[in-house]
């Protein structure tokens, strides 16, 4: 028990290297002699016909080694994952501003960058679309629309006492991982290539490189030590840069490195999908939501990337934590001339949830009740059916709501805010509640599998490889905990290896909050198999007739609970001497889950994560600025296996969500050029802009057997607490200007606040 307690408060095992500046990211890898450096020439037109690429001036620059274009691709010039609709290097046409056209390789980074500017692409412009509704009107869809139906909304409207409709929009979001995209590749023997990539999806990099180079996957080894942030932005979009350096290695047989400059990264990569949506909500006289219709227009950008999957999750989460008996939700993935948008923490879920929260806010305003009253009356209960057919099992919607409103004294808060607003003119306060419900699993069922490879070396030390990529979420720490707990040996005896496609193959990306569950379960299986073998050896060593009652505890073999004098290291060495295998692979595939896309019904999620946040804000009504006084959360961690790591995910996710709802404003002009193209023009939260007080309470909850050690997934759900920030500001603005029109257009920047205060 003591050891288990210690595990739960284990500090992030990577933090020692981080704080000393010794952790290694792609740009920190010691380069080999003869390393060359890459730079991309990208399109300065968002849509057009690529007539000619003049590379002569670039090639003539001293120090330039080669310039690669689509013509130099030996295999397939194709990097699309879900749909093959995106070339590595533009060929004949360009579809977004920032689309890579040519890849320059030179002796130094400066020369490569200078040469890239000397390339002249002759492009005949074509009309540019940046608005998803316009794209839909023109039939520019990435894939056929999807519709989720529960009950019968058409019939249900008659039963509604109150019906409201409107629009709601959310802008995109730049990932702004502090480490930009990058890769370093070098030749191995026999035409093979090793790539160090800052990617959440090593297998995606491997598969796509093999495809582009026309090589089998085993020719490409991808290795990932860690990422300086990912947030979804390196799930698919780390791939092109890795493939480009591999392409250059393939041709030049020299090491090649390419780490993007920030503005190049921001210009060329996709972001969270912006959405614009229509909603219609119907309630009965008791404020029960009877019917809900929503139509989502997703701005996918110029290619599919992961947008179809993001779109699906918008539908899965379109009713958030509420039970609505009649739902019709339709979603269009609209092709525009923006960089292909992609995964971002929450993966479409937040975009769906914002719309129903807007619908509830609109109804509340019209009815003169608080949104919280409507929210509370419609929270999911056990056995309620989601629009996709799965039933809510052990939902913690009501329990977390009650815990939050009790613990944080909502009644008192409401009185305090009202009293403040009566007494003050220059400042107004507002608050909002945000319940969340987020499904855990890749919605594509086949991706819910993972493998782990465990070596016990004959000195007793352990090496663990999984498909999990460490990007700050603490998965290395959790994996170590799994191995240490199953083996019951000291943490120091276990090393987490890099994530490598040669050691662990066919991995799913580290995404969907499911990384620790999938890889942890696979690791647990591998460790248990090894432990079983070691117990047999222990029984032999101790002359026991059976392994029953043999355990390892804190590094010592125990029999029937009694410590023996056989320790872990001796046991391992004896197993080796007896020629017992000390290596094992564990394979895990999430049970129970399935989804039938033809019916849009099934049981796609292993389980759901719940929680409730209360957000308080103060708006400066002279200047239109605002500060968050507090966000107080009760979150369903299940049985958290590491409270420090998990709390960090809640705080970080929340603040990222608040950023999306408040400061972070992507702006493209009509020509499809990104204007918010640097840290000076795209603002993410700094230490002064975060809520003064963030409280995170662990809900007393059982967890799920499908979560690793019953410790529920924690990566994405907290981002959606940030949505409360929007509605808290709206409520504060309303206290100053009761006539304000509810526009529901996030982010709620100081400009929009001031405009709303004085409209």
């Amino acid at each position, binding site marked *: 028990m003591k050891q288990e307690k210690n595990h739960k408060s284990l500090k992030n095992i990577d*933090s020692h290297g981080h704080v000393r500046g010794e952790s290694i*990211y792609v740009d920190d890898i010691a380069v080999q002699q003869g390393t060359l450096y890459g730079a991309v020439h990208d399109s300065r037109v968002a849509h057009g016909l690529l007539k000619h690429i003049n590379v002569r001036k670039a090639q003539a620059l001293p120090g330039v080694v080669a310039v690669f274009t689509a013509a130099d691709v030996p295999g397939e010039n194709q990097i699309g994952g879900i749909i093959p609709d995106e070339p590595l290097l533009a060929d004949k046409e360009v579809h977004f501003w920032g689309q890579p056209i040519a890849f320059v390789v030179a002796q130094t980074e400066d020369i490569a960058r200078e040469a890239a500017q000397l390339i002249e692409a002759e492009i005949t412009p074509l009309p540019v679309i940046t608005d998803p509704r316009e794209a839909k009107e023109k039939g520019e869809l990435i894939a056929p629309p999807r519709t989720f139906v529960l009950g019968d909304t058409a019939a249900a409207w008659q039963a509604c006492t109150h019906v409201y409709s409107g629009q709601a929009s959310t802008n995109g979001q730049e*990932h702004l991982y502090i*480490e930009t995209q990058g890769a370093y590749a070098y030749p191995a023997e026999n035409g093979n290539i090793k790539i160090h990539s800052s990617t959440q999806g090593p297998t995606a990099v491997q598969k796509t490189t093999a495809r582009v180079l026309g090589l089998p996957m085993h020719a490409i080894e991808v290795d990932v030590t860690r990422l300086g942030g990912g947030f979804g932005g390196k799930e698919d979009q780390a791939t092109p840069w890795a493939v480009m350096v591999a392409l250059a290695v393939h041709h030049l047989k020299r090491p090649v490195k390419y780490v993007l400059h920030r503005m190049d990264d921001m210009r060329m990569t996709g972001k969270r999908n912006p959405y614009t949506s229509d909603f219609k909500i119907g309630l009965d006289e008791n404020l029960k939501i009877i019917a809900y219709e929503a139509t989502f227009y997703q701005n996918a950008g110029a290619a599919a990337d992961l947008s179809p999957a993001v779109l699906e999750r918008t539908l899965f989460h379109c009713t958030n934590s509420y039970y609505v008996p009649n739902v019709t939700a339709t979603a269009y993935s609209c092709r525009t001339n923006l960089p292909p948008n992609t995964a971002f923490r929450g993966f479409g879920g937040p975009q769906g949830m914002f719309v129903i929260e807007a619908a509830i806010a609109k109804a509340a305003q019209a009815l003169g009740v608080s949104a919280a009253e409507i929210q509370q009356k419609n929270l999911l209960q056990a056995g309620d059916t989601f629009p996709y057919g799965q039933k809510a099992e052990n939902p913690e919607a009501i329990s977390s709501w009650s815990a939050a409103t009790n613990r944080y004294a909502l009644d008192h808060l409401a009185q305090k805010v009202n009293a403040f607003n009566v007494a003050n003119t220059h400042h107004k306060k507002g608050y909002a509640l945000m319940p969340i419900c987020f499904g855990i699993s890749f919605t594509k069922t086949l991706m819910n599998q993972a493998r782990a490879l465990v070596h016990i070396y004959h000195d007793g030390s352990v090496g663990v490889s999984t498909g999990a990529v460490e990007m700050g979420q603490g998965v290395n720490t959790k994996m170590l905990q799994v191995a240490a707990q199953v083996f019951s040996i000291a943490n120091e005896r276990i090393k987490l290896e890099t994530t490598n496609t040669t050691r662990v193959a066919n991995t799913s990306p580290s995404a969907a909050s499911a990384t620790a569950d999938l890889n942890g379960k696979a690791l647990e299986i591998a460790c248990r198999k090894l432990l079983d073998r070691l117990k047999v050896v222990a029984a032999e060593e101790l002359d026991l007739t059976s392994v029953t009652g043999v355990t390892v505890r804190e590094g010592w073999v125990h029999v029937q609970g009694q410590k023996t004098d056989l320790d872990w290291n001796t046991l391992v060495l004896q197993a080796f001497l007896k020629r017992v295998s000390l290596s094992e692979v564990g394979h895990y595939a999430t049970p129970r889950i399935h989804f039938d896309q033809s019916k849009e019904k099934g049981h796609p999620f292993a389980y759901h994560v719940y929680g409730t946040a209360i957000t308080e804000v103060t708006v400066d009504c002279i200047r239109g600025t605002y500060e968050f006084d507090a966000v107080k959360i009760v979150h369903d961690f299940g049985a958290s296996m590491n409270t420090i790591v998990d709390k960090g995910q809640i705080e*970080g996710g929340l603040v990222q969500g608040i950023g999306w709802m408040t400061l972070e404003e992507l702006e493209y002009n009509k020509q499809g050029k990104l204007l918010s193209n640097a*840290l*000076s023009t795209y603002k993410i939260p700094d230490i002064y802009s975060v809520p003064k007080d963030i409280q995170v309470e662990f809900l007393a909850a059982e967890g799920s057997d499908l979560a690793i050690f019953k410790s529920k997934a924690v990566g994405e759900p907290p981002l959606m607490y940030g949505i409360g920030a929007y509605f808290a500001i709206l409520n504060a603005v309303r206290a100053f200007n009761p006539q304000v029109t509810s526009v529901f257009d996030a982010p709620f920047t100081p400009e929009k606040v001031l405009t709303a205060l004085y409209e």
Partner: protein
Amino acid sequence: MIEFILNDTTIATSAAVGTPLLDFIRYQQHLSGTKIGCREGDCGACTVLVGTLHNDGVHYQSMTSCITPLGNAQGKHIVTVEGLNLPQGQLNQVQQAMVNEGGTQCGFCTAGFVVSLGGHCLSHQSSDYSKALAAVDGNICRCTGYKSIERAIQTVDHKLQAKTAGQSLDWLVAQGFLPAYFTDIADRMQTLSVPEPSIKQSTDIDGHYIGGGTDLYVQKPEEMMRSNLYLMFDQEALNKIEVKDQRCYIGAASTVSDVWQSEVMQAHFPQLSQYLKLVSSTQIRNMGTIAGNLVNASPIGDLSIFLLALNATLVLKHQDQTREVPLRDFYKGYKILDKQPTEYVTSIYFDLPTTHTAFNFEKVSKRTHLDIASVNAAIQLKTEGMLIKEAHLSAGGVAPVPLYLAKAAQYLKGKTLSAELVKETTKIANDEVAPISDVRGTATYKRLLLRQLIYAHFITIFEGTLTLEDLV
């Protein structure tokens, strides 16, 4: 040859003066703890400490190495995260606090935070929590949401309470904040050849005058790497803030931090720290010079707006010739100055405020701190009771140049305060401006914001007399 101490190592390099310090550290000295996040001073991942030798020891300031010319390292002690590490893998107090509180997730920004906080520990001032927090106001973290970092900062601040003045370096070493070599650094710095760079008098446009580099390295980094640079940052003659004949002279190479710390400025502008906290970040304030800010001619330069309302005058020099230009006449058009390329600014001066002078500075940006203004505005009023005897108003982000609102100022002169007067002033000011829509806001918003900021001036100055309700 540039000579300085990098962590524990004395460096003498013939690398180009304009090489970004960051690139020198990472790619020539192979110290990879200092990270590249943005190359424009906006994320703090590349933060280093720059130690300058003074009579009372070495003063350390945090700076972003990505936009620091290597030449500015001359004679300094440059400290990276590796230079704060203790031997045998031990963690220093800041590092231990960050680990204990989970203040690091992906780790990429972490070294920058550790270095910034290291600078706070090295400060000659006593520690308090708000100062410790301010030390990392230029460090961006995308993972943690900052709360764990705040907890680590609380721990560090708590431990620093036991630090006493005088023997602080020894104490910091003994308490595990710093490696031991720091105690010898002051002596070692004295042995460095530190010729004060002479102000070269260029007769032709063959290079750039450069201060902290905070604008030039953002706008044209490649050009800076390849150009002749005339380093102004450490010119002692340009670094003074002094009072002569009731005028305050701010030396051209004074940084924003110098202005903030100046006793003269603090005495005459009680709200100075509130104003300057809105100007970029600690790192950038330690680097950005007054002259750089003015000559950059950004229409939203915070100090330009501040000084315009003080009706300040610039002193320009070329060889032995000196001339003066009122700041309000200095800006001729977008980035066009009344300044010859060979001229440089030596100082700027203004009449010190009297007891009958009121001053206010306002700035609204998308993010309150470490951001560029949507609109900034300043006002100086000389009053007798409710009578306004003289007024100076300025606003940024509303014209191609930092704008002196001459008509609004003229209108106010000789009038008695009333809500109507304020409202009329905002109308006149709005007739003087021509904002454009850009990434910092639409033109409509900027006009509304200008009105609100002028309201804010009067509500602040005449607190209790005038409220928002009187005006809207």
